């Protein structure tokens, strides 16, 4: 029961981060390897605001979201858009964007380490809370509910608004999107920026219960990648389920075997999916 609840709470936050990467990869078709660094930037903002003026991370995230949106929009327009224009095939864009964002991730790590080279330790709502006979930290619960609200809002926006539907349309088929008059470059930039904002907010939330540091981003990039590929690219429902699965498995392995093996466990699931269901849990594209 402990494992179930802790795993679910962790999975909820992972799901939000994976949604961010899914928007960037599934819609804008940019495999963003600096995704984890975006997340850590959100965490760093929360840490700095909390230690400097004891600002609640829940307030910080309201500031982080528009800043991350604007920054990611600029990155897309000035760094990635030229790559998109130049690429003749989707494969070429994938290689170019991986290289460009991989480089960007190093730059961001350097910047973050120079701002604060230590662990981002701070204590927010680190009080026990009893739920269904299990004791969890309040901050985990708050982070989970914040993630559910933001993620739920995002899903509703994608499904029930005109712009949200256009975002999904670009994810399904860029050529068909042009046929109905959707400005694909603009929607791609929007999706990339939104994905970055969601990821950074996820980082802010994660920092309330996991102690991060400037160079830990790559681990979160890997986790988000595992979730997105496990759930199926462009499939939000799949990512949510995959995120919960990852949260549960990590928690189970950490408490039953050894906390050091969580990444190994994540990687084993990932390999299993790649070998037996490369299209993801619900993937249907076989072409």
């Amino acid at each position, binding site marked *: 029961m402990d494992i179930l609840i802790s795993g679910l709470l962790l999975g909820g936050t992972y799901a939000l981060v994976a949604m961010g990467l899914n928007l960037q990869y599934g819609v804008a078709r940019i495999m963003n390897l600096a995704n984890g660094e975006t997340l850590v930037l959100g965490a760093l903002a929360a840490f700095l605001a909390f230690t400097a003026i004891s600002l609640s991370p829940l307030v910080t995230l309201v500031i982080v979201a528009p800043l991350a949106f604007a920054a990611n929009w600029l990155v897309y327009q000035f760094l990635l858009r030229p790559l998109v224009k130049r690429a003749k095939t989707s494969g070429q864009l994938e290689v170019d964007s991986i290289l460009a964002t991989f480089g960007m991730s190093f730059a961001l790590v350097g910047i973050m380490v120079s701002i604060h080279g230590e662990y981002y330790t701070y204590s927010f709502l680190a009080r026990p809370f009893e739920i269904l006979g299990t004791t969890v930290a309040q901050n985990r619960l708050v982070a989970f509910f914040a993630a559910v609200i933001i993620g739920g809002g995002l899903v509703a926006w994608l499904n029930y608004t005109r712009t949200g539907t256009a975002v999904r349309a670009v994810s399904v*088929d860029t050529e068909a999107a042009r046929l109905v008059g959707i400005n*694909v470059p603009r929607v791609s930039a929007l999706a990339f920026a939104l994905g970055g904002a969601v990821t950074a907010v996820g980082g802010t939330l994660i920092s309330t219960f996991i102690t991060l540091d400037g160079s830990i981003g790559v681990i979160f990039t890997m986790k988000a990648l595992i979730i997105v590929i496990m759930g199926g690219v462009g499939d939000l429902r799949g990512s949510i389920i995959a995120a919960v699965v990852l949260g549960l498995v990590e928690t189970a392995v950490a408490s039953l075997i050894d906390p050091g093996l969580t990444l190994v466990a994540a990687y084993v699931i990932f390999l299993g999916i790649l070998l037996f269901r490369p299209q993801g849990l619900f993937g249907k594209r076989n072409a």
Partner: protein
Amino acid sequence: MLTVSSLKAAYGMHRALGGIDITVGAGEIVVILGANGAGKSTLLRAIAGMCEGQTSGEVNLDGKSIFGMPAEDIVEAGIAFVPEGRGIFGDLSVTENLQLGAYCRHARTNSVANLEQVYDLFPKLKERGRQIARTMSGGEQQMVAIGRAMMADPKILMLDEPSLGLSPLLSKELFHNLSRISATGMGVLLVEQNAKLSLGISDRGYLIENGAITGENRADALLNDPAVQAAYLGGAVAPSGS
């Protein structure tokens, strides 16, 4: 009224179109006949702003130049395009496909009336609203594609080989529906292999060969033209015209 003059297109060194002149009036159905590789698809893609090659020339819609605009602005100007292979959103539902059809700004005001019109023409789309487009039959997907194009409230509807992959019966139904659509005042420009059925509903036709227009006439005249019969109608049209 769509006016295309001296439209050229090339893919690298390969010349695909060498100066095409055609017109399509409001409420008119115009068919372009030609063999595979004659440049039919390139012509439609160039008008729609979706040709990957280098293009030059003039394309005017109701006197306004639309040549060189990005595809989304051409949709906004009033040209809807159903490409070969239909170009629908396979992973979205029928209703979502139709809603997205009315994405461009000018189509939003009339979207309710246009949806009524689409459902009137294709009642099946209303029944199957929640079905994922990819899981439908070829004929039904073609309905989704045409219905979605109509939702864009276009002045000109362009279709690339709409009867491809459809049974003779479904093709007949499709062409009948196209003539109903043009009766609403929309101009229809289509490219077809099925010369007999398409000429049967068209007002005018053009013949295209090696990227150049080699003939133009009223559709009934083309149907009875021995050269056209030999080239596009298998040389054996029943003289009774049945």
